[in-house]
């Protein structure tokens, strides 16, 4: 029943993907370069998906352009450096909850799946951790409840998908409906107010001038980056998403790994639930509405391939920050949410179009044209 062949002990399986994730030529290239670090120096981000770095630079360009638009349209606000600093913090705080969810989502998508239930898991974990009974255990009990609920729901998703052989789209869609239903029945459709000052302070307090929520986002992103780029777990994720059959033949327990990816996404949702509950000082079954779409969109414009096998944490983070910056830009200009949503949709399409556009073939095309024109 096990996917691991008897000869491949866990230790060997752990070494395998590090040597040869056979699916991604960029990875093998990066790996071989790492093995022989002679000649050209490697950039520090090189491990984060090779040409992903180039894509990330493009996203930073978009971000700078958005901020420039803000500065041009609202020069009076951008005159004040304190306001600008506060605005950056406001954007990061806005990005923090979706950002944490997106890190988990990025892993799931790189691993070849999709998780439509993240918003519902955030709502369920948020509602579960703010019931009167949970709150009676104090802040520790609330954090524990949110995280364990997140992981458990993620595990159910994972088991259904990897052992129940359900399509991820269907399994997580079912979970979306069911988790929101369970949240509504636990909360009795009421808004549950958090009376824990410790929890509420997470969103209200700053340490060294930076909100705690931003530190949490940073910690999750760094942990996600290390997990994806510097551990066998991350290498296996890329291998499983790129070509599950090749990954299985290489000795990776594909099913167990897929299951763990959904549990990881659930863990991120649990953390996000605490952050969101703290921001709103309350929770209800309808909260975190459509976060699944925000997280998927951010991962996609961050360069994560929907079919799996490729993606970067840094790109996803930039995607989330770009969306938060757009929201902020529309708010400070007093423009309607309708217009904001249209622009968001346009940016998603534009980002995917740009990614399909092959930079190398374009330069080749240019070179050929120059050749033909000169001769």
């Amino acid at each position, binding site marked *: 029943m096990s996917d691991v062949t008897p000869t491949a002990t866990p230790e060997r399986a752990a070494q395998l993907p590090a040597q040869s994730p056979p699916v991604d030529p960029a990875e093998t290239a990066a790996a071989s370069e790492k093995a022989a670090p002679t000649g050209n120096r490697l950039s520090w981000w090189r491990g984060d998906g090779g040409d992903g770095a180039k894509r990330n630079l493009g996203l930073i360009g978009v971000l700078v352009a958005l901020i420039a638009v803000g500065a041009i349209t609202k020069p009076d606000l951008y005159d004040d450096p304190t306001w600008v600093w506060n605005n950056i913090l406001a954007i990061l705080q806005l990005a923090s909850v979706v950002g944490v969810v997106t890190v988990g989502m990025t892993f799931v998508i790189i691993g070849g799946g999709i998780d439509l239930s993240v918003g519902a898991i955030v709502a369920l974990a948020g509602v579960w951790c703010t019931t009167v009974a949970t709150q009676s255990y104090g802040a520790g009990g609330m954090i524990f*409840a949110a995280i364990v609920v997140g992981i458990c729901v993620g595990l159910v998703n994972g088991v259904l998908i990897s052992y129940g052989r359900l399509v991820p789209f269907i399994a997580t869609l079912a979970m979306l409906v069911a988790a929101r239903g369970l949240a509504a029945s636990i909360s009795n459709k009421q808004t549950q107010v958090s009376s824990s000052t410790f929890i509420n302070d997470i969103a209200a307090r700053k340490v060294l001038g930076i909100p705690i929520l931003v530190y949490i986002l940073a910690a999750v992103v760094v942990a996600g980056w290390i997990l994806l780029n510097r551990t066998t777990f991350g290498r296996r994720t890329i291998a499983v998403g790129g070509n599950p059959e090749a990954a299985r033949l290489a000795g990776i327990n594909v099913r167990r790994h897929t299951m763990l990816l959904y549990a990881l996404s659930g863990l991120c949702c649990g953390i996000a639930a605490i952050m969101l509950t703290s*921001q*709103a*000082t309350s929770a209800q079954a309808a909260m975190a509405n459509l976060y699944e779409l925000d997280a998927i969109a951010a991962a996609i414009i961050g360069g994560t391939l929907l079919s799996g096998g490729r993606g970067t944490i840094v790109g996803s983070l930039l995607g989330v920050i770009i969306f938060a910056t757009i929201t902020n830009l529309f*708010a400070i200009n007093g423009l309607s949410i309708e217009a904001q949503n249209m622009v968001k949709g346009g940016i998603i399409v534009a980002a995917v179009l740009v990614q399909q556009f092959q930079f190398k073939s374009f330069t080749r095309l240019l070179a050929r044209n120059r050749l033909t024109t000169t001769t």
Partner: protein
Amino acid sequence: MTQHSRDLSRRRLLFGGAAVGAATLLTACTSNETPAASTQTKAAGDGAGNNAPGKKVVIGFSAPAADHGWMGAIHANAKAQAAAYSDVELKEVDGGTTSEAQRSTLGTLIAQKPDIIVVLPHDGKEVNAVALQAMQAGIPIVNLDRVFPDALASRLVIKGDNYGMGVSAGHFIGKQLKDKGVTNPVIGEIAGLEIPLTVERSAGFAAALATYGFKVSNRRSAEFTSDSGQREAAQLLQALPKIDAIWNHDDDQGIGVLAAIKQANRSEFFMVGGAGAKLAIDAIKADNSVLKATVTYNPSMASSAISLARLIAQGRGMGDLTELQVPKEVTLASETITKENASNYEKLGF
């Protein structure tokens, strides 16, 4: 190898034990026991005339399944008000989550021939035909809040006033600012989900402000949830470094709005809420936040609908009116709850 596998099994045992423990702890955490929820009823003893028991009547009741606090209060109020009368028997049918479901359960209710039926439809247009059918069968319909397009489909319409809510909020803010002598005020608006009722509320708000020569500086729409309220309020505060007043359409999302204001450490303005939730009324009474008033859209209308349905079925008029029968239409005024009158409204908070 055996050493290895034993380690593994011990680890698994520990892990399994921890999982079971966590599960027990978690299942204990779903309880939401709170002191018995108060409902908004009128005691059968107060007021004159109408409360004397009359002939026994059966009142049918159908409203959409409760999906948020306001709708939950509608159900609870109807039930509690009916229980307050010794001569009323309430037959509540499941309104379901769609007009389709509501039509079919209403059909069964009509077949049981109650004396009168109170209906809060999912959508007036879609349930209109069934209500008309009941009226033709001689069962009067009391139409609650969402109005049937056909005037023949109901005996009585009792509804709230969304436009009026905006007007009340606009007048409160306008008057306060005028009294303070602010000439060019910065007014923020945090609306709800962009559905027709929200558009009406905003129109009333703008119209009332215009009579003072003021207008809304920035408007963000949230989704009637506290987390969306926090999100939009945080952005609004960022957009307007100095604010004079804010109107937030809904007290439930207001929990998040107030959280955002506290997180941004702002207090140079005052805020008006909407709906009249218990938490908001308590905060207004305590006067310890920027929330200084809220304008009502009160689910107590369900209680009134039951009271009026009883009178219609018994063929009686309203005590203080000269008319021998109950009038055809009642539109609730959107009242403004402030610190001064908050204690009067405490029992109406939901």
